[in-house]
């Protein structure tokens, strides 16, 4: 089925973004309103599409729109085409919905910034790119959105780029993403070389004929792309620094939407991964490592945003883990993605609200007892908290529980290992999130003298409330009657195989709840009551390592940056001294030999005569020797 509306989803925000950029300061007065309206209208379009889609029979729910032939060279044909199916509509709603809320929030949050219009232009640009990412009907179209969101992320992280460290953070994010893009590029090349097409549909049709090696390679490259965009191990280091961006951005891009693009990519590429078990295993391993990695970092962070960022990393690790289990996990990955979108965005907005009231202070050691001063923030944040640690019946409980269950059900030793890891992750999650809650909203006041904590304005807390509602209800709504599983099945699980169960669901649920209890318990024991206003320094090596993001930056520096810089220096010197040196040497040797040969020209006529005589003799001897 085709539709002519899809393009507006992308064109409207793109147009609005361009308009705001081109008009410059002239649009300062109304730019934020305009951008918010545009964002709202994309949500409206998305909602209408969703309703229309729901009313259609399962097999004709997907909608396509071909705009024009984008690139056509020989057998390489790529249309600028859009595809809206059950998978992408979920994302469209998430992006435009959360996006709109964040637009609203930002009107107030950014009201004192002289560049608010530019901020909204970036936001709209992000919405457009992200929608293109999920709507593109081929890998190449996806790639455009993929890099587009990377650019938007770069621009927004560096929104206050007059601070050098923020500019650095932006660059770091872009470069890490580019490493991922490298994977995506190669994956597309593999696809074209093997299938002659790059559209999802085209590849899916031919996927059966490809060798497992090729599919594994392609899968691994897609995984690399996902690790870059979704801040998975080993490309996760940029996410913490990305918190340099304004907090709404952290909520939208670096929690709810963009960073989950990797999950989307793997889910979208289910036809590749389902036929490449080794690639799947790699996905699972990466997901597991990251979920623990992020969780551990989260325990050590005093910066509220960085703690949340570490948590995001960890939660996406769960999603990636789920996608690695194939059709059994895709739906749960997406479900967790959606619920996470609500509660994590909500918590980030809460963090923003706290910062708003605390002179942009981000150090939780300088908070304490804020619940009294900003009750709405505390409540909405608290609901998000309950959701993320997986307390039933909040949203996170449903989604995370199913992922842990899927992990255990993967079977064999692997299932036990990954299931246990996921369970362990749940313990740590409960611990560090409780820590955040306690340090921020409970305990003693530790803030600076000039801080006057107060509740945020309506425009800010309203979106938080909406998201909090989502945090409470979305899990149940999505899971009741396996709604999400059935909805997505035509895209990700066409064969409807049933999975054997290793552990009874009730066992897993009990384990998960136990994990939460343990985690919360430890945190309560450790962080209840009075805390110091600065972080203790006499901590164990483990804490120190965790505070340093488990040394990922150091590793990157040691493995890539230092050698890279060294290589650059060496090459610069080589170019100057060796390559150009050879060139100059040729010139110099010509001049040198000229000077040398000039010495033959003594000015003495006898020497000239001698030259003639020698020349004649040599010629004569040569000829006589050769000829006679």
């Amino acid at each position, binding site marked *: 089925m085709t539709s002519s509306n899809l393009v507006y989803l992308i064109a409207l925000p793109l147009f609005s973004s361009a308009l705001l950029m081109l008009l410059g300061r002239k649009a300062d007065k109304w730019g934020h309103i305009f951008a918010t309206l545009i964002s709202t209208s994309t949500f409206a379009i998305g909602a209408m599409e969703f309703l229309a889609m729901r009313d259609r029979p399962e097999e004709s729910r997907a909608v396509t729109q071909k705009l024009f032939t984008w690139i056509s060279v020989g057998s390489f044909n790529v249309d600028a085409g859009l595809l809206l199916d059950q998978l992408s509509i979920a994302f469209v709603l998430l992006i435009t919905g959360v996006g709109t809320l964040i637009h609203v929030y930002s009107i107030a949050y950014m009201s004192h910034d002289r560049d608010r219009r530019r901020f909204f232009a970036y936001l709209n640009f992000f919405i457009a790119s992200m929608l293109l990412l999920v709507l593109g009907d081929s890998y190449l179209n996806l790639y455009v959105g993929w890099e587009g969101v990377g650019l938007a992320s770069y621009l927004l992280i560096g929104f206050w780029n007059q601070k050098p460290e923020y500019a650095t953070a932006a660059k770091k994010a872009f470069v890490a993403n580019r490493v991922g893009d490298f994977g995506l590029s190669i994956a597309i090349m593999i696809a074209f070389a093997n299938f002659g097409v790059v559209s999802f549909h085209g590849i899916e049709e031919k996927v059966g004929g490809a060798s497992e090696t090729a599919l594994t390679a392609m899968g691994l490259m897609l995984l690399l792309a996902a690790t870059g965009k979704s801040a998975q191990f080993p490309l996760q280091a940029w996410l913490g620094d990305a918190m340099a961006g304004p907090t709404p951005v952290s909520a939208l891009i670096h929690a709810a939407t963009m960073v989950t693009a990797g999950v989307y990519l793997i889910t979208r590429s289910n036809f590749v991964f389902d036929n490449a078990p080794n690639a799947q295993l790699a996905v699972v391993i990466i997901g597991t490592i990251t979920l623990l990695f992020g969780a551990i970092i989260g325990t050590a962070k005093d910066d509220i945003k960085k703690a949340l960022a570490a948590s995001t990393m960890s939660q996406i690790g769960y999603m990636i883990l789920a996608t690695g289990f194939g059709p059994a996990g895709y739906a749960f990955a997406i479900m967790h993605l959606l619920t996470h979108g609500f509660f994590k965005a909500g918590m980030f907005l809460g963090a923003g609200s706290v910062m708003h009231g605390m002179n942009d202070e981000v150090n939780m050691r300088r908070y304490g007892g804020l619940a009294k001063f900003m009750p709405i923030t505390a409540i909405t944040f608290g609901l998000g908290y309950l959701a993320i640690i997986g307390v039933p019946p909040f949203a996170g409980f449903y989604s995370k529980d199913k992922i842990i269950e899927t992990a255990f059900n993967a079977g064999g030793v692997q299932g036990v290992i990954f299931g246990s890891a996921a369970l362990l992750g749940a313990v740590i999650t409960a611990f560090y999130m409780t820590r955040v809650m306690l340090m921020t909203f409970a305990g003693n006041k530790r803030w600076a003298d000039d801080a006057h904590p107060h509740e945020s304005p309506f425009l800010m807390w309203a979106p938080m409330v909406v998201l909090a509602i989502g945090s409470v209800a979305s899990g149940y709504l999505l899971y009741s009657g396996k709604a999400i599983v059935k909805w997505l099945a035509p895209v990700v699980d066409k064969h409807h195989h049933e999975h054997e169960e290793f552990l009874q669901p009730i066992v897993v649920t009990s384990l998960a709840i136990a994990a939460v209890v343990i985690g919360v318990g430890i945190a309560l024991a450790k962080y209840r009551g009075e805390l110091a206003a600065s972080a203790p320094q006499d901590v164990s090596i483990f804490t120190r390592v965790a505070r340093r993001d488990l040394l990922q930056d150091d590793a990157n520096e040691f493995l890539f940056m230092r050698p890279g810089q060294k290589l650059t220096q060496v090459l610069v010197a080589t170019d100057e001294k060796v390559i150009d040196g050879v060139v100059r040497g040729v010139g110099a040797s010509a001049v040198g030999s000229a000077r040398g040969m*000039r010495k033959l*020209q*003594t*000015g*003495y*006529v*006898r020497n000239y005569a*001698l030259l003639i*005589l020698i020349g004649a003799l040599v010629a004569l001897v040569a000829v006589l020797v050769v000829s006679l």
Partner: protein
Amino acid sequence: MNPTNYLYLSAILFSIGAVGVVVRRNAIVVFMCIELMLNAANLAFVTFAKMNGNLEGQVIAFFTMVVAACEVVVGLAIIVTIFRSRRSASVDDASLLSR
């Protein structure tokens, strides 16, 4: 006598002249060495005329003598002029032109 011997003689004379040009400094002597070379060639011509049994070689010898005489005129004019300027007939003194 075998005419080839004249050729050897001619070659020897030519070589003496050629080497003389290289080793002697006085312009006049150098010039005489060149004359020696020319006459060595003349000897060769005449010998070849004998060997080949035609007259052309001998005719050339006369031409050569005339030309050599012309050369003497021109050469001495130049050498005398330069001697007047420099008070020296050494060819090594005439080495201002070298760079």
